[in-house]
């Protein structure tokens, strides 16, 4: 049957003619994040895959869309005192405090391994002020083996760490300074601990961000009733895992409708189905975080699951899924 013979009202079809044609070949998983072309839309999230060495024992790093490395700062950081983590209902709290080797050792000790492993590296950085963000970005610009820079504007576990991404002005200024300092694509990672995520995302785009990624963790707390002490030495920490997925998905949906740059969805992704929810909501790619702790290979499982689903649904390319959410005719408008 030629595609001409197919019913014309493709809205009512689960499989559109184009999709059916494309479905005959293996689906194309390639995606574009601004100027950056990734082999597929599944990355590992910053802080949940170290600098790749340990993960490589379980996952061939060159199979993933990208590895987003643990946030690096100007100087090495020792991090917060333990206990740094605790479990919560369908999630966990962490207050690692950005323990990291610092930008210089990242470049000298960590990048070579990632390069050799064929990984696409997105380097996540955090500065203490706008100038430091720019300085870090400049330092990475000359270095081979970094495909893009992600700005951790939102780490809630260091003093003042929240300020950047709860303030549109600061967000815009940081993105602009970083863009001026590097030729690498820049991804602004946003905090969910805000009244209006769309305003922050717009500010990042106004500052020149090539993409936005969201969400970082929600600030939370837990108390050990027996000892009457906080379960984290830092008192509060960042909530991650399946518990936060509905909030992440909502924010990704809102932001994807409001900005023109690609959106990377993060938050509670455990399965291919979770990832597909984010793609349907408008994310061009996803990052898998906490789930990697439950199964080091889970990012590959998510990737393979997406591929299988695309094949089963006759999808030729990931782009066909992105933003493919179907809405009823009379959708109530969002409050924001």
């Amino acid at each position, binding site marked *: 049957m030629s595609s001409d013979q197919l019913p014309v009202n493709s809205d009512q079809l689960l499989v559109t003619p184009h999709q059916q044609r494309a479905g005959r070949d293996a689906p194309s998983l390639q995606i574009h994040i601004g100027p950056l072309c990734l082999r597929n839309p599944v990355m590992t999230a910053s802080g949940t895959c170290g600098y790749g060495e340990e*993960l490589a024992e379980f996952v061939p790093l060159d199979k993933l869309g990208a590895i987003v490395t643990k946030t690096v700062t100007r100087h090495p950081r020792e991090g917060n005192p*333990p206990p740094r983590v605790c479990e919560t209902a369908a*999630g*966990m709290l*962490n207050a690692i405090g950005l323990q990291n080797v610092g930008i210089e050792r990242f470049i000298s000790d960590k990048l070579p391994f990632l390069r050799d492993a064929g990984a696409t590296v997105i380097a996540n950085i955090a500065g203490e002020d706008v100038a430091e963000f720019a300085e870090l970005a400049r330092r990475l610009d000359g270095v081979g083996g970094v495909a893009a820079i992600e700005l951790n504007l939102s780490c809630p576990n260091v003093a003042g760490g929240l300020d950047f991404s709860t303030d549109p002005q600061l967000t815009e200024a940081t993105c602009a300074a970083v863009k001026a300092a590097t030729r690498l694509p820049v991804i602004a990672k946003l905090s969910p601990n805000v009244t209006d995520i769309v305003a922050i995302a717009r500010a990042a785009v106004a500052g020149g961000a090539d993409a936005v990624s969201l969400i970082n963790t929600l600030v939370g707390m837990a108390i050990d009733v027996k000892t009457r002490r906080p379960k984290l030495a830092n008192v509060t920490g960042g909530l991650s895992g399946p518990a936060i997925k509905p909030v992440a998905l909502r924010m990704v949906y809102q932001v994807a409708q409001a900005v023109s740059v690609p959106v990377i969805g993060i938050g509670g992704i455990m399965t291919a189905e979770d990832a597909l929810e984010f793609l349907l909501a408008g994310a061009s790619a996803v990052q898998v975080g906490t789930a990697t702790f*439950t*199964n*080091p290979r889970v990012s590959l499982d998510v990737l393979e699951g997406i591929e299988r689903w695309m094949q089963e649904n006759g999808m030729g390319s990931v782009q066909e899924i992105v933003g493919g959410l179907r809405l009823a005719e009379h959708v109530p408008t969002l409050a924001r």
Partner: protein
Amino acid sequence: MPSVISAPILAHREVAPRHFVLTLHAPPIAASAQPGQFVQVRGVDWVDPLLPRPFSVMRAHRDKGDIEILYRVVGKGTALMTRWQPGGNAQVFGPLGKPFQLFPYGARVLIGGGVGIPPLLMLAEQCGRRPEAMRAATVVLQGARTADQLLCVEDFQRTGVTLELATDDGSTGHHGLVTDLLKPHISRLQARYGTVEVFTCGPMAMMRAVAETCRDGGVGCQVCLEAPMPCGFGVCMGCVVKVRGAWEIGQGSRRIKGWTMERHYKRVCHDGPVFDANEVVWDE
């Protein structure tokens, strides 16, 4: 090279009140696990609790491809595990972490209590399989509150190494702390074998006391630590312990180690769980 496996559950039995031994079919893990290493265990569909639970490998049957872990029921995760039945599957990945380092010379004391016993049994069974000389120069000291809380006593006896027990209530063996037994054994073994290495796993207070005795007695001590472990393979930085900076000269019996004043965090899961006792900053 660690693996992630959906491992068939082969056996599951209660070996002491609230203590279970779980046997899993996990050939790649069985093939390489060493004493002191651990696995991350999780129900295949866990979302709450979410994270895997770390357990020491107690036995690795390389021929059959099976591993055994011994766990105590303490909270939500282990409570759910008690319902697992042969025929089902568990998600397991490992082996993880740095194992105990066994030296082919001198004598050794394995001292522990509670769920610190499983890695020591694996170590004892390894010593027991070595030449007679090694078996004879190995002592296991196990402590518990009461006799019925002693673990794997017959298994230790079967290894052929010397086993001594201590209970808080005197119901079996020495009436008192297991650490009481340590110093005399160290002196005796030092006199006879020259060098002694102590291996310990158990409650923090016990391990700390063991570490101090060893430091005072000038014998090497390897401690197997615990910490909450979200990932277990070194990527999250959640499981840190404060350690002293170390320096080291020479090799084998001629190695000399020292410690700087500089302190920093190491990951229990990946840099340990076995540490040199002198490296650990005990009062943090």
